[in-house]
Each structure stands twice: as structure tokens, then as C-alpha cells.
């Protein structure tokens, strides 16, 4: 018995040491393939060695949107992966009924209030959000949300569950940047940059509120907009929002966006986000790349396609359409409208 117990203890000690050694090996050499693969891949059967020059992504040159200096926080670009599930049907892509479109009357005020429509599943510029409340961004059931138009025309999202500032800041940036870059649009609002009362984070534009704040409320043109009713500014009636972003594309047989041959050859994928300034004749007057894909060919392809080949729905006023073009090798190129707003006059 005595010797038997001692043997058992020795065995356990051996087992423990073995475990430790294995653990160290697995921790130190996580890549078993490379550990055992002594030769050069592909040469065992006379294959070829491909030396690929990997160029640093141009995406690292931060755009005004991704530049931390231009924001109060550090937004991150989340690009969808090809393996993602198809985007859910959401408010922004819900077709607008003819009645709702027809009921949109021209804005009474000469300064239409743009409305941005958020898309739950599309890649967006996101602020790291509190993890306990991620659904606020994508949940298409904003029954409890409200938009209040401030005295400056800025719409402020009020959510019952959190303070609006945490939501507004990061999402507002693209719109603000867009308006600054789209020259024709910026020129129409000369007062905006010098607006002393404008908050820098929010910009001086009409990009009020966030995409989040109006999800599900204005896609059909019947969102619950309220005036603030406070302050000294004159109380403007809520402007009629443009129709849903998805309803202004794919008209007159736009043939999608072709995958650039060279990019496809090099298996390059990415997402390009663009602002398209559409004139009243339905043609793109200007296209600005908000987020580049890291492959300039993809960016250029998306930009030129909208600028030269596409025809959009003509509305009574110029508008700015934010679009994602997702270049996926598996699924092919895909166009996803993100938001729409009136261009600033």
C-alpha cells in the first residue's frame, strides 16, 4: 500500500509536469502549421512562390471623419465582412408608399431641415458604445424616441434610456464632414461655418440628431418630430423629410456597380461610403468619398459609377444621399443606401 500510494503520487506529479509542459508548448507555439511546415509552401510539388508586395492601407490616412482631431472621440470604421448575414430589412430601406411620397410638400421655409436616416445593419461610423445598450443603434423599434428641433434647427434625439450626447456625437460627424467637403453644398450655406452658436461637434449644419434617433420614425415621412418649444429662437414647423434613401436609387435601370477587374484579380475587398449630391434632375453633381476602402480602385469605381453612370430619383430639392458600396468577392458588389437629407442651400 505504501509503495502503491507513493507511485500514485509520483504519477500525479508526472501528469502535472506534463500538463505544464504541454501548456507552455501550446502557449509558445500557437501556429502549428508554421511550426511543422519546414519547406516553402507550394514548392513541394514544384509549385510557385508568390511574393506579394503588401502596401500599407491608405485608409490609415485618416479622413476628417476618422481623424481624432476633428472629433471629440475616436470613431472607428467597421467594415462588413462578406460572411455577414444579409442586412435586415430596416427602416431606411423600406419602400416608401406612393402616398407618403406624394404627401411630401415643398418646405415652407427656404431652409429645409435634412433628415438622416440610419441603417441598422450597414457599416457605420460608430463610437464605442456602452456595451449594455448596443441595441439602441440598430433596433428598428424606436417608439420611445423623439426628436426635438432646437432653436438652431438642430434636431436632438431624446431617448428615455440615456443621455443624448453619447449618441449624437459620433454619428453626427459624417454628416458634418460631408457638408464641409461637398463644395456645392457648403457654398449654399455661407453662414454655417461662422455660426458662433453652433457647437463644433454637432457642426453648423442641418445634420441634426443621429441616424439612431430617427430610425423607424421618418422613413415613411411620418416621424414624430417636435419642436423644442423652448428658447428664444423662432419655432419652425418640422420640414418634410425626403423620401427614404432606398427609394431614390435603382431608377431607370441603374446597372449596379461593377467590381473593378484589377481589384477582383487581386482579391481586394472593401466598403466605400460616399455622399452623393443629387441635383433636381436626378444626376449626381458631386460625389465625395467619406470612408475609403483601402483600395483606391474600389473608391474610384464607386465614385465614378454614381457620378457618370447612375441616375437617381429627381426630387424638388437637391439632396445628399449617403451610400455604402460593399465590394465582396463572394457576394459581388452591393449598394446600400444609408441616409438621405436635403442639401443645404
Amino acid at each position, binding site marked *: 500500500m505504501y509503495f502503491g500510494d507513493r507511485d*500514485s*503520487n509520483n*504519477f*500525479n506529479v508526472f*501528469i*502535472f509536469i*506534463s*500538463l505544464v509542459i*504541454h501548456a507552455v508548448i*501550446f502557449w509558445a507555439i500557437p501556429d*502549428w*502549421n508554421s511550426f*511543422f*511546415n519546414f519547406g516553402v*509552401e*507550394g514548392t513541394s*510539388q514544384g*509549385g*510557385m512562390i*508568390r511574393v506579394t508586395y503588401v502596401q500599407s492601407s491608405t485608409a490609415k490616412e485618416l479622413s476628417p471623419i476618422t481623424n481624432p482631431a476633428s472629433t471629440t472621440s475616436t470613431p472607428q470604421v467597421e467594415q462588413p465582412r462578406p460572411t455577414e448575414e444579409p442586412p435586415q430589412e430596416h427602416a431606411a430601406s423600406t419602400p416608401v408608399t406612393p402616398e407618403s411620397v406624394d404627401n411630401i410638400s415643398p418646405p415652407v421655409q427656404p431652409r429645409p431641415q435634412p433628415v438622416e436616416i440610419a441603417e441598422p445593419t450597414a457599416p457605420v461610423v460608430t463610437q464605442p458604445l456602452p456595451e449594455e445598450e448596443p441595441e439602441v443603434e440598430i433596433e428598428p423599434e424606436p417608439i420611445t424616441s423623439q426628436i426635438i428641433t432646437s432653436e438652431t434647427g438642430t434636431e436632438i434625439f431624446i431617448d428615455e434610456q440615456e443621455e443624448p450626447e453619447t449618441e449624437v456625437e459620433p454619428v453626427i460627424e459624417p454628416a458634418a464632414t460631408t457638408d464641409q467637403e461637398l463644395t456645392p453644398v457648403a457654398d449654399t450655406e455661407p453662414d454655417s461655418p461662422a455660426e458662433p452658436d453652433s457647437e463644433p461637434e454637432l457642426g453648423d449644419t442641418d445634420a441634426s440628431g443621429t441616424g439612431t434617433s430617427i430610425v423607424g420614425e421618418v422613413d415613411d415621412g411620418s416621424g414624430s418630430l417636435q419642436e423644442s418649444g423652448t428658447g428664444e429662437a423662432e419655432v419652425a414647423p418640422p420640414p418634410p423629410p425626403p423620401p427614404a434613401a432606398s427609394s431614390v436609387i435603382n431608377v431607370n435601370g441603374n*446597372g*449596379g*456597380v*461593377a*467590381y*473593378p*477587374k484589377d481589384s*477582383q*484579380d487581386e482579391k481586394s475587398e472593401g466598403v466605400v461610403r460616399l455622399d452623393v449630391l443629387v441635383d433636381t434632375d436626378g444626376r449626381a453633381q458631386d460625389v465625395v468619398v467619406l470612408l475609403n476602402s483601402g483600395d483606391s480602385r474600389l473608391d*474610384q*469605381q464607386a465614385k*465614378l*459609377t454614381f457620378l*457618370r*453612370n447612375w441616375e437617381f430619383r429627381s426630387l424638388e430639392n437637391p439632396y445628399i444621399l449617403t451610400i455604402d458600396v460593399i465590394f465582396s*468577392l*463572394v457576394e459581388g458588389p452591393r449598394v446600400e443606401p444609408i441616409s438621405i437629407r436635403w442639401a443645404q442651400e
Partner: protein
Amino acid sequence: MPTLSRLSTFLISVMLIFSAAAVPCFSQEQKPNLEIANEYIRIIINTLEENMGRFSVGTTGGDPDRVGDEHQHLIYGGEEPWTSYTTVRIGNQNWVFGNPTNRRAGKTGLYGQVVQPPTIVDDSLVSSWQLGPILVTQTLSFTRSITSGLMDTAKIEYQLLNTDIVSHMVGMRLVLDTMLGYNDGAPFRLTDRAILTDTVFYSHEMPAFWQAFDSLSNPQVISQGTLAGGEVTPPSRVYFSNWGSIVDGLWDFNYQPGRDFMRAGEFDLDSAIALYWDQQPLRPNESKNYVAYYGLGGVTITPGELAVALTAPWQVKADQRHRETFTIVAYIENTGKGEARDVTATLQLPAGLELLSASDSLKRHYGNLAVGETYQTSWQVIPTGAVTGDVTYEVLVEATNSESSLAKRSIQIVKPDFLDIDLIGPLFLSVENERLSPLPMEVMAKVTNVGGATAYNVQAMLHHPLFKLAKGDAALKKLGTIHPSDSVTVKWHLDPTGISGQLMYSLDVISDTDRYSSKPNEVFVPYIEPKVFVGEPQTSHDRVAAGQYFSIPIWATNVPDFRKAELEVSYDPQYLEIVGRSLDVTRGTLFVDPALAQTRLLQWQTPLVDNYKGVVSGIVGDRGGSQAVDSAYGTLITIHFRAKKSGNTTIRLDNVSVYDSKLLPIDVRVIDRDIVIE
């Protein structure tokens, strides 16, 4: 502690499992391609699951007379080709050769089953796919350029074989996504035309070749596609267009004359070519071959302020009987710093060459040539037939305000290919064992090229008015290419069964140049009388002895159009007996059909055996009307006897009736046999 032990054991087991799983997970990276290469070019074929079978072409050393065209693209795709693909149109369906793709080029096509994945066979890249009823084999190899004379050209060959039991309308389209180095949108140049927009050429106007280059002063690489000559199968039509439009259509595509080569849906120039061989009927077991050439352009460049490039075939055939016309193309580019005024190009021909048309002019006037502009002109030339060997022609380019340029290029004038046919066969056949011998009769033809030029697309057709071809043989045989002084031997196997007399056969040989016929050969085939007879006893001993068993076959030989036989067999029961009665009677080979995959027994009536009377009666076999044989040679029945005692006895055939396919009686000679039992 026991719990700890069990836990440790469990953990170790888990780790070992993971370790074991990790070891075989070494990434066996799939090879993206196979390639063959020579000192000029390389051909790469995609071997990945997606796009398998598609190919590209690039240079290795390139043109030996040009620096800077090494390791350049000639067809887009490099190491993983995917943009060029081949459509086989069967009926109204468009099948794409190779494995499916998820990309733009051919994504919506029908795809078949791989029969042979890309394989290197004798310096060729061979692959096969079964596309519906058609077996398509793609063979990529090197061949000699018609302009440079070097092996700097890819030979792209497809064989389409109808494996169905019915005919199909079959056509083919080959798309080549041309590329010059990194220039994917270079224009095409044919004779005196620069092709910058959508253009089509039909067979009646098909030029011998087209070329593509970006600049004469500093060409990255010059490519060339051959449309006629060599082994090339001239296409029905050729389209030059942008790659996007061409590949978006599997067969027809959006062709817009005058549109530039901007890639459809994109914003870059991207030229491509589509060669069509329009649909033709393809009978069961019939095959058709289509050959295209693509490789380096054989262009001689003379630099200068007025750079001149000359191109033409490197060899032309001519003698007093046959003269081959050809085209001399001159490209003239103003590489100077100012406009060249009153530019002229004058062709200077040596003895042995002359203009095809007397009304044509050797001197061409272009006018002013802007900086960087290219002028292109051509002459149709024919050898006189009086001169052979190398001759040099020149093109003098002049301008009033620029130095003139003189470009020279040589051409070899050779005698045309001439095929000598030696047809060899037996003078007579003999008879052995009631059969013609040798059977089948072998006929051999030796075709020798005694001319000065290569003979292309040689085919031999045997004419045999009375003979039948042996099963599996065909009268038409494709001999392919025969170089000067080379010979090709080809054989046919003929079946003269059922015919007799002094019979003739002959051979016709066709090449791209001419048609040749052999003198008819004669062979004497003797007549063999149709017979039904008792065959030799078959025994394990040298002779038949009392108490032994032996077999007697009843033969039917040389019976024309044989279908049915009825007969009785008589024997002396004092000497012979059939011990097993009907069990010792076996049907003959003529009532078994071995032609099918599984041997099939034809109609046969089991006979009655009467050992008391010594009669086997009711022997009836019927092949059926559709199974009649042209000339019967086999047994009707085999009977197994036992010799009861010594002596001489006879086995007789009685009431023998033989019928043809229409159940009409056939006259046959019946022969009994005497048996000696020792």
C-alpha cells in the same frame, strides 16, 4: 487524488487529440496553376477549384531582338487566369469550358464535369471537360509564329467530340483578354487599320493576323493573334471590343460599332478579342478541332524620328504551280519633336516578289504626321515563283522636314509542300480454315512531305468501294502537320468477308495547300463456299479411343446474311452415345451475341437426344432479323459423345436448313465426317 488523476488523464487525452488534429492540419496550399515555358513565352493554366482550365500567356525571354519585353503579360490573369474563357454552344445552350467561376467572366454559363484536370502531357497542357453531350479537350502548347518563325506562339487547340447518340449543333467562342505588359487597353492593328473601337471581321475578309502594341518608340511588348495560316482554323468571325462587354455575354454580346474599348461598367480601357466558330452539326462520335494562335508579334522596328516597323510572314510558298500571296504591313510613328510633313512610304521589292495587283502603288502618301501619331499601311505581295531562298524587301519613309527612315525585313521563299503517297497492301488473300487470310486486311499509307514548306491540316481519306472497314476504324484520318522531309504512316483495317474477286482501293490526301490522290491498289479476294459441316473431334488425347469422351462441333462458315439454322445430327448408337443426353449438347457460338457489354443468349431450342436411334433432333437457333450476321463463321451446336467401342463410324447432318435475315433459305454445302475409334 484519484479525482485529480482522472482529471489529468482526461486533460492529457484532450491535448493529445488536439495535438493529433493539429499535425495533419498543415496547410496544403493549393497550387494555383500549371505552366509550360520556353525561351520566349509561357502558358499558365489555372488549377484552382474555381476557374480551373482557364489560361493566360506571358513572356519569358520575349522577342530576342527586343529588350524590355521579358516577363510581361500577353493575356490578363498572370498566375491565376480567369478573364479569358471559352464557350461551347450546343444547340441553344452556352457551356463554359472549365470549372465554374464566381467572377464576371462567364459566371452565368453552364458548366460540365471535369474529365481530365489540367495535366502536362508531352510539353502540352491538356485538360478535358464533359459539357453535356460534348467532350471538350483543350490542349495548350507552343508553335511557330507565322511572322517571326520562332516558337514564340501559344497554340490553343480544342477538340469537340460528340459522345451522344444523336447529332448536335455545336459552335465555339474563344475570348482572349489581351494585355501588353501592364497595358490592358492597347488597340489592335490589322493590315492598314488601327482598331480602336468595336469592330468585326467575317471569314471572307479575315486578315492573316492582327497585332497589338502601344508604342513603336518604346514598345513594352508586341502581341499577335493569327487568324489564318499555319494550323489555325480560320474563325467564322472575329470581334474586337472591350473585355467587359464581351465576357458579360456568354455567346452574343453587346456589340456597338464605334464604341471605344472602355470596359463596360468601369472607367479603364480594356481591349479583348472574341473568335467565333459558328455552329455546325456534329454527328455521333464525330469530332471537330479548332486551333488558334496567340503570342509575340514578329515585327522589325527601325528607330528614328520616323520610326518604322515592318511585319509580314517569315516564309511564303511559291513555285510555278502554286503562289501564295501575303501582306506586308508598315507602321510609321512620328517619334520626333515636330510634325512630319508630307510623309510617304515606298515599298522596294526584290527580284522574286511583285505586287499582287499591277494597279497598286508602291508609294503611299499620308500627308502630315503629328507628334506621336502612327500611320499604318500595307501592300499585297506575291512571289513570282522563279526565285526561292531569302529575299529582303525595304520600306523607305520620307518627310519633307525630317530624316528619312529605311526599314528592311527578309522573307523566305520556299517551294510549297508536296505530299507523296505510298499506299501498301496485300496483292491477294488466301483461305485458311474456311476463312480469308489475313483478316482483317491491313492497308498502310506512308505520306511524305517532299516539298519545301510545312504541310498543315493534312487529312487522308481511304476509298474502299466494296470493302467494309473493321469495327472501330474510320475512312478519314487526320494526320495534322507534316514538316518538310517528314513522313507520317497511317493504317486502315478492311474486312473483305462476303466479297470476292479483284478489288480496288485508293487514298486521297488533303492539305491546306493542295489535294493529292494515290494510284488505286488491287487485291485478289478468293471465293469461299458457304458450308455447314461436322468439325474435327475435340479430345484431350491425340485420337479418339473407345471409352473416351470427345466433342464434335457443327460449323457454319461463310454463310451470308445468316440468321437461322435447323438441322438434325445422326450417329451410330453402336459406336457412340450421348451420356448426359440434352446436358451434353451445347448451343453454338452463332446463337450467342457477345457484342453487348453483357453476353446475351439468342433464341435457341434445346434438341432431343435419342441414344437408341442415334439422333439429335430439333436443333433450331434463331438470331432474329436484326441480329443477322453478314457472314457467319461459328458453330451451330457442339455435342459431347462417348466412344463405346473401336471401329469406323460416321456423324451425319440431316435436314439442314439455313436462312437469311428475311428467312429465305440459303444454299450451303453440307459435309459429314467419318470418325475412327481406336
